[in-house]
Each structure stands twice: as structure tokens, then as C-alpha cells.
């Protein structure tokens, strides 16, 4: 597959790894955060850490949109799904994410009509085919996904499909990164920027990270060589004493983003004054809601949403784990109240979250795994 296979070669990886090792100052350790859950997935899937020297550590950031949805919002969505003559539609990602007590899969088993879709346009098609039912789309995702929801809402309005509404849980990446940057005990040396968010918002919004917080950021692609090359670019900035925003993923990300997508977004959605993030707490202006002009397609206006609040247990220390301050096993509830079967915080929800990964495989050191696979 073009634009995929050529970015997965082991030879180029070894060459980059040698460059990376050469850029590391002796005795210094480097900690970089990959903001995006997609990067976490790539790092895990391809075993990228095997190409990194011991003193380079990657910390998994807050960019997994399902993991950061607070339990109360999941419960609200389940409440909508249980309304009479209602079809709830959702991406597959959301199906297993637990709310206060239940997930979409559980609610489906209990009789709610919940359907998995690949695209918000598929939800719109279901609304077109079921005019006697109210069809709700559970919208999740960062700025990458939000424009698709916006275009779908515009289409619903144009077609006067008044049985279609969106339960909007779109979040924005910059405030979450800023919340991490504002942490007094931050120990990061730089960021891998979220490539696909950047196709929409471009590279300008990250400039304050370099300018005001003194941390370099490289917008990175999603193939394993993209990530290694981005780490190489970060280390080069540090070695040369530079601090700026670079774009490793220029084949996909224009410096100015996608103006058409941004226009659709601002036509349909506006910032919420505040939104709760699982594990990170309430962050002002960090999420989107549907504008008044599209009220007919806003599930929060069409339905009576209970606004369930399920407080994250105060003992959950996801925020600290996300910031790289604590290791998973140092969290007070890790492995007791919080397990992959009964996750409390965002780091345990996704199987690639730092805590879930540590729970499943923490007893195997990387050295043991590497030894076993040596030919």
C-alpha cells in the first residue's frame, strides 16, 4: 500500500535509530509526549521503542477521544439511547467505554437500539431510512473528526431531516495540552504534535508551546518512520539549542490546515465554556457544542439530557500519570479499584493507555521481550 509500506522499513529505522542515539547527550535523559492516541497505537503496534536508546522515554498524552469522555457523558448518551423510538449511532470505539456502570454494548444487550457506524454520514442515512425514529449520533473526537460532524449537520439541515440530532462530545486539543504544560511538575522535553488534528487546524496553533513554554513540537505522521523521524527532529532541536514548531508530516499537513473544514466547524459549532475530561478534570473552553442556528439537530436541545455527573474518584491519579509525574504502579488505586475490567481513569480505559498496558504486561521487562525475539 502506497504511503504506508514505504514508511515501515526496518533498514531506514535502524539508520534513524543510529542518528537518534548520536544526538543524545551522554548522561542526559529525554522525555517526549506523543499527544495523540493514534501515535500511541503506532508506537505500540510497531514496537518503535525498541529503536530508541534507554534514555529516550515516550509519555502517552491525552489524545484518545473516547478515553477522555467523562463517565457522566456516557451515562447521558445511554439515557438518550433508551428513549422510545430512538436509534443511537456510534463509532465502534465508543461501544466498550464504561460510564458510571454500563457501556453501549451493555445497553444494546438490554434492548436499546444502538448501531455502529463508520461515518457520521452513515448515521444520517439511517435517519433518512427511519423517518419514524429519532436518530442520534454520538459525536466524539478532536478537530480531526469534528468537521465531518459539522458537514453532516449542515446536510441534515439542508435536507430538513429533523429526526437527526448529534450528541456533541467533540473536544479540542490545545486546551488539554495547555493544561499539561501548566502543571508545576511538568517533566517533558518536547512534543510529538497530532498529525491528523493538524490537517484541520494547521501548525500555527502550537507556536505558543515553543514560544511561551520553551518546548519544541514536531507535527508527526502516523507510520513508524514518521514517528522516529519526528523524535530525531526534536532531538536535533534540543542539540542545536533551538525551540520551534516543525512539520514532519508535510505530505499530509498544510501549514495552514484546512480552511474549508475550519469554516464548516465554526458555522455549526462553538466552544463550550467548560468541559470535564476524564482524569484531567474540568478544562475551560476545551470542547465544542452545536450552535443555536442548528438547534433542531442538537441532541442536548432536542432531548431532555439529564446531565449526569459521575465524579472521578479523587484517588485516581491519571492526570499525574499523563503528565509523566507518576508511573502507573505509583497511583493509589492502580490494580485495586482500577483494573482493565473496571477502569476508573482514562489511562486504564484504552488497552494502549499507560495503566492498562502496564497492568497486562508490566511484569515483562522490555529486555526480556527483546531477548526472546532475538533470532
Amino acid at each position: 500500500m502506497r504511503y504506508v509500506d514505504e514508511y515501515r522499513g526496518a533498514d531506514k529505522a535502524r539508520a534513524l535509530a543510529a542518528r537518534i542515539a548520536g544526538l543524545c547527550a551522554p548522561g542526559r535523559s529525554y522525555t517526549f509526549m506523543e499527544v495523540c492516541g493514534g501515535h500511541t497505537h503506532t508506537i505500540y503496534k510497531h514496537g518503535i521503542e525498541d529503536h530508541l536508546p534507554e534514555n529516550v522515554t515516550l509519555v502517552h498524552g491525552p489524545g484518545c477521544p473516547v478515553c477522555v469522555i467523562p463517565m457522566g457523558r456516557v451515562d447521558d448518551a445511554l439515557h438518550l439511547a433508551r428513549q422510545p423510538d430512538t436509534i443511537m449511532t456510534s463509532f465502534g470505539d465508543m461501544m466498550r467505554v464504561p460510564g458510571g456502570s454500563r457501556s453501549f454494548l451493555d445497553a444494546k444487550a438490554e434492548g436499546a437500539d444502538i448501531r455502529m457506524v463508520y461515518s457520521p454520514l452513515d448515521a444520517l442515512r439511517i435517519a433518512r431510512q427511519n423517518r419514524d425514529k429519532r436518530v442520534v449520533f454520538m459525536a466524539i473526537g478532536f478537530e480531526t473528526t469534528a468537521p465531518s460532524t459539522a458537514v453532516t449537520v449542515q446536510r441534515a439541515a439542508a435536507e430538513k431531516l429533523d429526526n437527526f440530532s448529534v450528541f456533541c462530545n467533540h473536544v479540542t486539543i490545545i486546551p488539554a495540552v495547555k493544561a499539561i504544560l501548566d502543571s508545576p511538575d511538568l517533566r517533558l522535553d518536547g512534543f510529538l504534535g497530532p498529525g491528523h488534528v493538524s490537517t484541520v487546524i494547521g501548525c500555527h496553533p502550537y507556536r505558543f508551546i515553543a514560544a511561551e513554554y520553551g518546548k519544541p513540537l514536531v507535527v508527526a505522521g502516523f507510520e513508524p518512520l514518521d514517528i522516529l523521524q519526528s523524535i530525531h527532529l526534536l532531538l536535533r532541536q534540543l542539540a542545536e539549542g533551538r525551540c520551534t514548531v516543525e512539520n514532519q508530516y508535510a505530505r499530509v499537513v498544510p501549514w495552514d490546515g484546512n480552511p474549508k473544514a475550519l469554516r464548516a466547524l465554526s458555522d455549526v459549532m462553538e466552544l463550550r465554556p467548560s468541559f470535564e475530561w476524564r482524569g484531567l478534570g474540568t478544562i475551560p473552553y476545551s470542547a465544542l457544542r452545536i450552535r443555536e442556528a442548528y438547534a433542531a439537530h442538537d441532541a442536548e436541545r432536542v432531548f431532555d439530557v439529564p446531565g449526569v455527573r459521575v465524579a472521578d474518584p479523587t484517588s485516581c491519579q491519571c492526570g499525574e500519570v499523563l503528565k509523566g509525574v507518576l508511573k502507573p504502579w505509583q497511583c493509589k488505586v492502580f490494580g485495586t479499584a482500577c483494573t482493565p475490567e473496571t477502569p476508573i481513569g482514562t489511562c486504564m480505559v484504552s488497552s494502549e493507555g499507560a495503566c492498562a498496558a502496564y497492568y497486562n504486561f508490566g511484569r515483562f521487562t522490555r529486555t526480556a521481550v527483546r531477548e526472546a525475539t532475538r533470532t
Partner: protein
Amino acid sequence: MTTEREEQVLRRIDRARRRKARVRDERITLAHGAGGKATHTLIEAVFLEAFDNPLLAPLEDQAVCPAGGARLAFTTDSYVVSPLFFPGGDIGDLAVNGTVNDLAMCGARPLYLSAGFILEEGFPVADLTRVAGSMARAAEAAGVRIVTGDTKVVERGKADGVYVNTAGVGVVEHHFTLGAGRARPGDAVLVSGPVGDHGTTVMLARGELGIESDLTSDTAPLAAPVAALLAACGDGVRCLRDATRGGVATVLNEIARASDVAVVLGESAVPVRDEVRGAAELLGIDPLYIACEGRMVVVVDGACAESALAALRSQPSGERASVVGRVVAEPASLVLVKTEFGGTRILDVLIGDPLPRIC
């Protein structure tokens, strides 16, 4: 280097993992049927708990039972695939091949099948005739006879067209025992052909994802390739598993656990068709977890790897059979993937159905 506190936490996790399986869910969800962790928990906590006996306990795809001096292989399986007809086959092909394959995986020669039909009121007779025709052809191809059966009709809405159950018996004509617990360090791991064709074909045939392809199901009987393997390698064959629900990843995890060994898989050695890869990339699914209905994972003594490969490749549509990995001692009960990129990852057991994802 682990600190004492970290050691404590790790020990606590290990204790929790060893605790008896318990179903936490109040109701059955689709995950309980997906062949992953949820299915295993359900089987162990409900069925093994109720029926436990030495023939059932290994939880293989079939039981090998002593019967009048012979060794009888016995298995059953139910088929609820939707859609009923898909490119490359239908529910009838699956119902015969699936049960034939469950028998073949212990090295048995499949002989006789039963066929039970649960029909929904209103189901077209023409469709039923088509399914029965497929079953007859599949049985003939696999060298088995359908010798008994049952028919029930339920009210409209109580079933989805037709469900088929088949049970099968066969004879084990060799003296050794194949099983997931027999893998040893030094063994080689093979697959009998490209993986993920069936699961991808059916997923796309449902039409909900709007993806078109020219893929066809891989449904096929495996009795002949198994016979060829046994002829070539004898008791050098350790274990055979058809990679159905949960795919190759799940089968390898079962073997690693049952044998208390590690399996090291070479990612680029696993044959996957371009279209399966394309659909998998698009949907964010790993082909190693996608079901096959005519492919098996084979573990043989390392010394037999080449003859096993030759035996598999000599079979019709066996040309892409491959050696994909090897068995090592440590870290026990784990499946590791040596990635094309030159890294490693742990290949975990599937939690539930592989769901298309967007992030």
C-alpha cells in the same frame, strides 16, 4: 530494576489474574460470542463449572473419546452467520466445513455429521434448498456423510432466517495426541494460507460499512491438508487449530498458555491479502484477529518445519502456506510479534469482537 513497592503491585496483579474466572456482566453481550476473553470467561465460569469432566476439561475444539477400543473424535458447532449468503460461500458451507475442521484438528478422519435447522417463520424455501445444496456439496468434498438431522420452526422475529447446528464424529487412527498443550521450545509455527479472508468478506458483505471488494470467503475443509501433514511429519505434529473466531492471534495465545511457552511471530511472514490489509487499515482492525474458516495454525517439531511446509503447499490453495514463527521457553504464556519495522510487541488476547475504530 523494580522497586519493592512495584514488586508488590505486580504480585497483586498476578494473584488477581489467577483468581477463578467470573462473569461480571449481568447479561450476555455480543462480546461473549466473539471468541475472545469474554467467551473464555463465560465457558469457564458457566459451562466448565457445570459439566466439568476429564474429556471436556482440555477445552479443545473436539473431544477424543474412547469407544469400544477405538478413539472417537466428537464435536458440535452452531452457525448464525449474517448475511446467510456471501461471496465464496454461505451458511451451509460453513456448517459442514467448520465441523469437519474441528474434527480434523485432533488429526481425526471425519466420517459422519448431523444437521439441525432452526428456521424462522417466513424464510424462503428456495433459500433453504440452496443452503441444503451447499451442505451436500461441501460434505461430498470433505468426504463425510450427513446421516441424521432435526428441523424446528420459530415465530417470525425469533431467529434470523436460518440457524444451522452440525455435530460430527470421526476416528483417530494414530496413537499420539495433538493438543494446544503440546508445543515445546524449538517448535515451528505455520499457517496454511492467507489469513482474514472470511471475516473481512462477511463484515463487508453486511453492507453497513459501504466498502466494496472482490474478496471471497476462505471456507474449506481441512481434513486433506491435515492428513498430508500427518503423513509427512507423524508425531512431529504437536498441535493444529483452525483460526476461526478471534483469528490467528487468539489461537496462538491459547497455545502459549496451554503449553506454558512463548510464541514469537514474524509479522512480515504472515500471509495477508492486499484487500484484507486495505480493509483492516481502513477500519483500524488487526488482520491477526480476523476470523478464517479454512485456515489453520500448525505447530510442529522444528525439525519437521520444511516437510510440514511442503505438505501444506502440496494441497489445493495451499500455495501461500508459510512458516510464521517459532516457540521459545520465555516469557512463558506470551505471544510476541517481531514487527516488520524491526521492533517487538505483545500480541494480546482479543477482549471482544474486533470493532471498527476511528481513533
